[in-house]
C-alpha cells in the first residue's frame, strides 16, 4: 500500500536563477528604491563640501573668495544642482515614511499619518527659513 520512502545521501541542489546586476532597472519601483538609496551619496558629498568651505573660511578672506569662485564653476554648479535634486528626493521620501517609522499615540489613539508627515514638513519650512536668516544676515 505505502510506497517505500527513498532517501538520497546528497543534499538536493536548489535551482536558483541568476539575477542580473541590473535587477533594479527592471521595474520603476526598484529603480525608485535604488535612487533613494543613492541620495546618500549626495548627502556625503555635500557634507564634505561644507567641511571644505569651513576650512577655506578659517584660512582667511582670500581662501574664502577662491572657494566661492571655485564653487561657481560649471562642474560644481552641475554637481550641486544634481545633489540638490537628490537631497530633495531624500527629504520627501524621508518625511513621507516618518509616520510609519515612528507611530505617535495621543490619548490612546494613533495620530494620523498626514499629521505626522505634516509636522515634519512644517519643521522643514521653519528650519530652512532659520538657516537662511542666520546665514544671510552678514
Amino acid at each position, binding site marked *: 500500500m505505502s510506497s517505500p520512502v527513498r532517501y538520497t545521501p546528497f543534499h538536493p541542489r536548489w535551482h536558483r536563477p541568476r539575477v542580473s546586476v541590473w535587477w533594479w532597472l527592471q521595474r520603476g519601483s526598484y529603480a525608485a528604491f535604488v535612487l533613494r538609496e543613492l541620495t546618500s551619496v549626495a*548627502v556625503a558629498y555635500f557634507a564634505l563640501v561644507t567641511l571644505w568651505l569651513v576650512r577655506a*573660511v578659517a584660512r582667511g578672506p582670500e581662501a*574664502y573668495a577662491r572657494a566661492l*569662485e571655485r*564653487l561657481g564653476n560649471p562642474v560644481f554648479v552641475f554637481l550641486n544642482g544634481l545633489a540638490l535634486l537628490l537631497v530633495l528626493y*531624500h*527629504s520627501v521620501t524621508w518625511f513621507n515614511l516618518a509616520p510609519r517609522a515612528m507611530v505617535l499615540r495621543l490619548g490612546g489613539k494613533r495620530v494620523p499619518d498626514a499629521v505626522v508627515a505634516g509636522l515634519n514638513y512644517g519643521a*522643514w519650512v521653519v528650519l530652512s527659513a532659520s538657516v537662511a536668516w542666520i546665514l*544671510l544676515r*552678514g
Partner: protein
Amino acid sequence: MARSLTPLLWTLFSAGGTLAALLFPVHLLLTGLAIPLGWVEAPSHPFLLGLIQHPLTRLYLFTFVSLALFHWAHRFRYTLYDGLQIKHLTALIVVVCYGAALVGSVLAAWTLWSL
C-alpha cells in the same frame, strides 16, 4: 561585535537621515548655488568667521558633517550589497564605509576644534 553595533549604526543612520532631510536642501541651495552664482549677496568673511567660531555653530557643523557621513555609510553599504550583489565582500564594505565616515568625523572635529 558587528551585530552588537547594529542598533547604534542604525540610530546614527536614522538621526543623520532626519538631519539631512531637514537641513541639507536649504544649505545646498544657499552655499551650493545661490551664493556662488550671485543670486544672493555672499556673507562677508568676518561675519562667517565669527559665525563658525561660535561654540554652538561648531557643534552644529560637527553634527551636520558627522551624522551625514554615518547616514551615507549605512545606506551605501546596503546599496553596494544588494545593488552589485557582492554580499561576500561584507567585511571589506563595512570597513570602507564606516571607516570613511569615522575618518571624515575626525577630520571635521579637528578642523572645527582648531578654528
